[in-house]
């Protein structure tokens, strides 16, 4: 697996040489676009990070976790990982911190630890991805896209808790 990407990179550059394309010019030209792209994403990132920071610092997330623990347990999700599931759509670094917390409290190889690992691996930071993807477009109504993505995250969590019991 470690060789896939390096070989791919070299293969692209070598193909350029063989086809007598100006590889250097091409790379520079593409790299230049990265500035515009990341700058157009920047204000949206700022908005998301301010929201996540405020949410986490206020302790509101812990409170919401307490309220939502009973319905989640009906789905077979242990209450110890509910906070991870709730914060995951908003923040990658935040949920990684919670994951570390779970590992330190319950151990990496415990059922809770394994559950949390699979939940983390099978979900995405939906709101973060949405803000980055739709930055720079005129899209204001995202319709079903975000609800579907959130539903997938939840399904992933339910499946994770189930699979870790069996496997």
């Amino acid at each position, binding site marked *: 697996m470690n060789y896939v990407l390096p070989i791919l990179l070299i293969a692209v550059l070598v193909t350029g040489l063989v086809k007598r394309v100006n590889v250097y010019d091409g790379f520079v030209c593409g790299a230049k676009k990265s500035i515009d*792209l990341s700058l157009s994403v920047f204000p949206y990132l700022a908005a998301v990070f301010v929201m996540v920071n405020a949410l986490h610092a206020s302790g509101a997330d812990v409170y919401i976790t307490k309220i939502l623990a009973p319905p989640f347990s009906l789905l077979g999700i242990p209450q110890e990982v509910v906070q991870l599931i709730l914060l995951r759509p908003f923040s990658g670094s935040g949920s990684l911190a919670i994951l570390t917390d779970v590992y330190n409290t319950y151990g990496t190889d415990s059922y809770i630890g394994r559950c949390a690992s699979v939940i983390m691996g099978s979900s995405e930071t939906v*709101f973060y991805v949405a803000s980055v993807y739709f930055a*720079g477009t005129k899209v204001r109504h995202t319709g079903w896209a975000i609800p579907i993505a959130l539903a997938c995250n939840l399904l992933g969590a339910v499946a994770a808790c189930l699979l870790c019991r069996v496997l």
Partner: protein
Amino acid sequence: MNTVWTVITVVALAVLTVAQPQNVLKVCLDGCTQAVTTTISLMGIYCLWLGIFEVADRCRLVEGLAKCFAPLNRWLYGRVSRAAEQYISLNMASNMLGVGNAATPSAISAIRETEKGDTLSRSGAMLFVINASSIQLIPTTVIGLRASLGSAAPSDILLPNLIATALTSLCGVALVFCAYGRAR
């Protein structure tokens, strides 16, 4: 996004103001600073991949990739412009190789091609859902963290993780078909 962001931020800031008013400004500023550092590191990632993509494009490699993916893409996304087709193929290839870093710039470029109005189209929704629930072959970050915290079998979660991500991807695609119907 407007409602979600405003409601959550207002509630969180109100709670924070009651609990610890001296920290409100610090918390907000920290968020903005994080955005600056993240943007800089994203710029580096985009720089590498957009550079490589441009070279691949000039070698007509992207065109070939788009041809390989054409049947799958037609079924998933329907009829989209040629440029969008190529970006989507790059995105699918990056996702399959597990290079999340490279998937983002190609997805953003694809969305900019397909979305011209103010309501998200079916193709855009599909692209978003596939990326937000993408199959991850090896969750490197999680395995690394497990190993560093002394797990006896850090990669023990590979199989359940693979099944769970495959399930979420399938379900995501199915839900887009339910909500938007078949691709035209």
